């Protein structure tokens, strides 16, 4: 009687990865690349706990002096092993939405690889991650956004609190229009720097126009002289 293929496959997988936790094995593929720090922590926890000492000289009686010299380090305590209760930031200035319908683009890969860092840098703000299904539905309702995702939508809560969404109320970073990993990474870094440095800005719109979009004569000169806006401008 032939063996069940699925049964043999699952047992083989279990044998191949004895240390893998069942929860992680069941996690969706998207989580793997979104959270590389967790993967690093898991790899670090596998480090040996016994320090190998160099061989000590043998004493006259023939006993090895190093027998008592083996130092056992305390087992590594994993930080963040237990999920801490989420505390929303006290005074968020921005709401950041990440909309990604899943085009296989370089920008998507760059965003996924650097998401954990962005999350850490933007602890003061609220980040909302739309799932792929929600992103597709959202973009389907707003078709001008097709091909521009992954989109990082930044809502200025001060502006929205003052006059709603009728006037200026934030900006979109359309990563999907970029074609190279270098451009995508530079755009992400520019975005992170801008949002961090202008968190308390009174006139955010003017800062975006001069700082990000290089409008005006000074902007033209900067486009010509500085490498970052030149590279982003393609």
């Amino acid at each position, binding site marked *: 009687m032939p063996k069940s293929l699925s049964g043999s496959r699952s047992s083989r997988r279990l044998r191949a990865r004895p240390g893998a936790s069942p929860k992680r094995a069941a996690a969706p593929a998207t989580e793997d690349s979104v959270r590389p720090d967790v993967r690093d922590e898991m790899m670090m926890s596998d480090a040996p706990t016994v320090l190998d000492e160099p061989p000590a000289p043998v004493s006259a009686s023939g006993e090895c002096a190093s027998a008592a010299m083996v130092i056992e380090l305390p087992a590594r305590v994993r930080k963040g092993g237990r999920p801490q209760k*989420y505390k929303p930031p006290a005074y968020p200035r921005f709401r950041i939405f990440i909309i990604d319908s899943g085009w296989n683009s370089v920008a998507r890969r760059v965003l996924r690889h650097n998401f954990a860092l962005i999350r850490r840098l933007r602890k003061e703000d609220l980040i*909302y991650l739309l799932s792929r299904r929600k992103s597709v539905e959202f973009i389907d309702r707003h078709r001008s956004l097709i091909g521009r995702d992954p989109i990082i939508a930044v809502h200025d809560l001060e502006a929205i609190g003052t006059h*709603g969404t009728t006037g200026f109320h934030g900006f979109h970073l359309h990563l999907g*229009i970029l074609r190279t990993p270098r451009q995508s990474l530079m755009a992400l870094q520019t975005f992170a720097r801008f949002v961090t440095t202008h968190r308390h800005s009174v006139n955010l719109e003017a800062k975006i126009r001069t700082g990000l979009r290089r409008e005006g004569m000074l902007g033209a000169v900067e486009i010509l002289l500085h490498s970052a*806006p030149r590279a*982003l401008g393609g």
Partner: protein
Amino acid sequence: MLDRFGEAISVVLGALALAYLVYEIDRRKRKLRDLFHVLGSEDADISAELVDMVESGELQPYTRGAGA
């Protein structure tokens, strides 16, 4: 005659170089405007939908290990 011809050539080449510079700066500015799109009244419906999704509880802030 040759002097005038040379002058005309250099004026035309200078104008072409200037036009290319203006075109190139404008192209890069357009790309930057498209990349960093400022949200105004014409984007009100897009933003309002995201705000509604947050206020209705459909979207929750991202925490470690939890997505939308």
